[in-house]
């Protein structure tokens, strides 16, 4: 049965490397812009989902107090940057079950590079007690272990992973929201400063401040010609248990049903917005989500191009690698870019004839790797 629930509006704030603004000012701005884009206002919202590392001691309900809205459904993201996509899946269920009619999903954080290390050092009890005292280098050190294992297991080459950073930068040059818009060549990528060998500078995201938001509601409430249908969505957490550095992220557990329920396969996607905390994780998503076989990401990367006009448009606004990573907003940036493309509002980085695309989230780094994976497939309503 085709879903009649989708995304009616999207909003994004400017990203800032350093800011004096409060977290709530970012969250509120993104929310207001998403409602503007949906032709709605805060009074139309009866469900609220918030994903933010820095939200405590606040939560979704105190966020509702700040926004001045009374809601019948409240969701607090728990899955790191897999949370925003998961919040959309759960918002859809809340609407289907009558708990809400219109859900505002917001994700954002405001920190900088120093704040990011502090966050990672205390990310979970497991990391705080058994990672931080090792000098583990935050996420960089952990994903260096994963990348080396992928390279040594499958022959994955840095110069192929670099295609992700380089091609996304080319798209970012057409996105005024991207913090990093300077030209990047594959030589720049290969010769960049080492951070946590084999991870180098252009494998890493720039921590920053900002927020993203979308409005999930029934399609009849969306502005004419602007509705985006949610075809399917699934999430997975702590998979596989008790592996420190797996070469899969959890998407492979639901990829089959994700496509079955959507009625489309990987080759029917006009673009993909994958979670690009590191190129190696994009490569693993391409494998887990069936764009190539496990272990063949390097050859797939070498055979394709990934800018907005490429053979597989990927993170068409530049992704986190070029836009910056505003904490958990990184898990919703992918969705707002997808909706922007499906509404044909992407200007000179518009993917030609963009009808449907896949979005994936990933996050909540535990003792060695990201514990959470999520994905949705979206389609423009004709």
């Amino acid at each position, binding site marked *: 049965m085709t879903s009649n629930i989708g995304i009616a509006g999207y909003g994004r704030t400017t990203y800032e490397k350093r800011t004096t603004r409060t977290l709530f000012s970012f969250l509120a701005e993104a929310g207001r812009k998403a409602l503007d884009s949906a032709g709605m206002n805060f009074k139309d919202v009866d469900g609220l989902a918030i994903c933010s590392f820095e939200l405590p001691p606040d939560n979704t309900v105190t966020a509702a107090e700040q926004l001045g809205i009374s809601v019948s459904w409240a969701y607090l993201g728990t899955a790191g940057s897999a949370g925003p996509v998961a919040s959309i899946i759960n918002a859809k269920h809340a609407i289907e079950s009558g708990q809400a009619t219109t859900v505002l999903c917001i994700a954002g954080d405001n920190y900088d590079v120093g704040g990011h290390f502090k966050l990672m050092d205390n990310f979970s009890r497991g990391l705080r007690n058994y990672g931080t005292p*090792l000098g*583990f280098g935050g996420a*960089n050190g952990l994903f260096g272990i994963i990348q080396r294992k992928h390279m040594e297991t499958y022959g994955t080459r840095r110069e192929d992973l670099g295609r992700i950073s380089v091609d996304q930068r080319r798209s970012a040059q057409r996105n005024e929201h991207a913090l990093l818009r300077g030209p990047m060549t594959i030589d720049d990528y290969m010769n960049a400063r080492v951070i946590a060998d084999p991870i180098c500078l252009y494998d890493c995201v720039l921590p920053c401040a900002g927020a993203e938001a979308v409005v999930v509601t029934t399609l009849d409430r969306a502005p004419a010609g602007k509705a985006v249908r949610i075809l399917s969505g699934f999430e997975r957490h702590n998979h596989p248990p008790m592996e420190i550095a797996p070469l899969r992220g959890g998407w492979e557990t639901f990829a089959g049903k994700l496509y079955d329920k959507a009625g489309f396969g990987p080759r029917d996607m006009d673009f993909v917005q994958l979670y690009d905390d590191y190129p190696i994780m994009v490569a693993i998503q391409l494998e887990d989500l069936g764009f190539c076989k496990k272990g063949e990401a390097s050859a797939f990367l070498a055979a394709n191009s990934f800018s907005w006009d490429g053979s597989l448009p990927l993170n068409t606004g530049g992704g986190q690698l070029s836009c910056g990573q505003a904490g958990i907003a990184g898990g919703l940036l992918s969705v707002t870019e997808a909706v922007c493309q499906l509404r044909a509002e992407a200007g000179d980085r518009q993917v030609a004839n963009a009808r449907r695309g896949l979005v994936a989230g990933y996050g909540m780094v535990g003792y060695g790797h990201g514990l959470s994976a999520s994905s949705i497939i979206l389609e423009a309503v004709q």
Partner: protein
Amino acid sequence: MSAEIAYPQPYEDEDNAPFLAGWREGKLLLQQSRDGGPLFFYPRPICPYTGSTDLVWREVSGRGKIVSFSLITRPNHPSFNEEVPIILAEVALDEGASLLGRIIGAEAASIASGARLELLPPNEARRYPLPAFRLAA
């Protein structure tokens, strides 16, 4: 060695006190369900394989091998700045469990996946808050 700045320490609680006390004597203690099953790390009040909360501590050899590793030139805390690159490895212990660990006293160029490891001897181990390894002789 940055003697002025202390390493970040694990937060000691009832779940990990025996493990931390063991390491202070240079021993590596892992948990296991009393009824058997795989050894596991990190310390916790329930066996992630069997669901049992009736757990025992087992001392293991500390011998194992490098599964994969990263060489960290940008550590997360200033206490590590003079020791870069930090060699952070996924270590598969001979007894079956895996853990993250530092490899001490080796040139980065001499590190390779598959290399054999052993625990640092107790007199060298004392200054490290968590089990640390060296290349096996």
